[in-house]
């Protein structure tokens, strides 16, 4: 997978005032045949506004559940989720929750309208905005995901390619102008070119200031896109904060059925400090050439 080149200025998008996120001792369990199964246990972390977080962990470690809880689709059984420092029940919390966008795994399965524009308009039209505001947000979102509204606005979602459908579904979330964007395995089932394109879009959102949480098995893209990591192991935080890819960090990733990013492994095997490994192939080539 290609690394993502940095973009200093967001393309076609105004700067966004990102939202800060914190979890304090968040616990959640599912009922499975009358037996509660703990999905999240005492999960605590902080993510400053405008930062990007790689949410890593083996299948079943609790990544999707954590995204649902942060989005407010599931209520934590213990602990609390803080948005811009506010806890649930505080004045303005509902409004903040509406500024959290969640892109589900394979979101294109939920496309339903008969035109791209109509599909993207569904979310913002329920936020009480004026028609003009909704139309402007839809056009902006379509531009952000590289589906220019003049070319794609009236297309039927099912007539789009798989990669275009994935980006259209993302536009449906971006049209609500999230200040915190949560993505659940956004790269699954995409071909490499489409993954690169989606990664460029996410890099753009990050550059615009949106706070990002990216749940993924793709450690190379996580390394390219994310400032920090949160590693979950059976619902508990195994590691959090800045990437620490010394030997201990590598062992932690391996214990969670992950591997270290390619560029980190390369730096280690070249005898360089893996903690100073570059984030992109271009940076790596500069350092090596």
């Amino acid at each position, binding site marked *: 997978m290609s690394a993502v080149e940095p973009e200093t200025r967001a393309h076609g998008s105004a700067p966004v005032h990102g939202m800060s996120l914190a979890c304090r001792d968040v616990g959640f369990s599912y009922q499975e045949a009358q037996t509660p199964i703990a999905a999240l246990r005492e999960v605590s972390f902080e993510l400053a506004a405008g930062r990007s977080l790689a949410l890593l962990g083996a*299948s079943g470690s609790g990544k999707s559940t954590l995204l649902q809880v942060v989005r407010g689709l599931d209520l934590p059984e213990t602990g609390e989720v803080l948005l811009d420092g506010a806890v649930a029940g505080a004045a303005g919390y509902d409004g903040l929750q509406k500024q959290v966008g969640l892109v589900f795994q394979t979101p294109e399965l939920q496309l339903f309208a008969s035109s791209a524009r109509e599909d993207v308009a569904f979310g913002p039209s329920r936020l009480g905005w004026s028609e003009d505001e909704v139309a402007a947000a839809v056009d902006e979102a379509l531009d952000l995901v590289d589906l220019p509204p003049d070319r794609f606005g009236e297309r039927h979602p099912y007539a789009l390619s798989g990669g275009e459908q994935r980006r259209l579904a993302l536009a449906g979330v971006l049209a609500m102008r999230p200040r915190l964007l949560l993505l659940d395995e956004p790269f699954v089932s995409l071909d*490499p*070119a489409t993954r690169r394109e989606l990664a460029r879009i996410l890099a753009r959102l990050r550059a615009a200031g949106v706070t990002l949480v990216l749940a993924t098995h793709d*450690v190379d893209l996580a390394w390219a896109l994310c400032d920090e990591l949160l590693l979950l192991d059976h619902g508990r935080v195994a590691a959090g904060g800045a990437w620490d890819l010394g030997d201990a960090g590598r062992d932690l990733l391996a214990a969670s*059925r992950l591997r270290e990013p390619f560029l980190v492994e390369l730096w280690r095997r*070249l005898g360089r400090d893996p903690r100073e490994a570059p984030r992109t*192939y271009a940076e790596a080539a500069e350092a090596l050439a």
Partner: protein
Amino acid sequence: MTAPDSSTSPAAGGAPEAGGGALEAAGRPAPLIEVRGLRYRYPGAGTEALAGLHLVVSAGEFVAVVGANGSGKSTLARLLGGLEKPASAARAVACGHDLLDDEGRMAARRDVGVLFQNPENQLVAECVEDDVAFGLENLGWTPQAMRVRVDAMLARFGLAELRRREPHLLSGGQKQRAALAGVLAIPRRVLVLDEPTAMLDPAGRAEVLQAALELRAEGLAIVYVTQEMDEVVAADRAIALEAGAVVYEGGVPGLFRDGSLVRRLGLGLPAAGELALELAARGWSISPLPLTTGDLLAALGEKR
């Protein structure tokens, strides 16, 4: 842009290629998969999903199938497994069964196993061992023979301790191993894997790829559909699809060559190759293009 060692060109359409005769003359084992000019169109679709595809795979061969989303990879997997009827083909044979014929397809379903991307759709029973036994039960195996076979499959895929577990309580990698055990419980000659690692964590990916390589060593023909360029490196050969036709067939290094063909097809290079291209753009070209971290390190070592 067709690679020099390609034996198949997109322009060939349904016409049989010279390569087929050569194969048989060379005294190699008879191919287990042989399709020529294979065509398929989904009901109501404007364009063909497969537009005159050729593929020949012999026992003990591991062939990677790559192509962008929508290029026809999954359709090919379903047709090879006898799960859909081809619209037409000059020849479409799997393990000696004619895929154009209804009875042939039913017979092909026994000899050709297909593992899909999402194991959730393949696990149907209430516990792992029942799932692994499911296919055998349908074929009328005796309970005793079935038990022996299921035990062997559970042991082989590290599922013995999970035999009574409900499939939905397994991790993604365990589910895919259980699905694979179920596919292989019926003795197969060909295994078709359709993006089998897409939903898995890196360790799960390595496990599934390793299992496919072991099955090749045991003499199965492996057709491995993937979007993971690092996995392609493990294959004996690769074919690349575009708009339902083969635009490259040949060795893996030839597929990746200088990166131009895979770029044009919406694919990419293994990570080591991507970095090597960045180095080449800075006047430090490495030939042949490294495809693994080990190759890249060796090349970097020589340059110093």
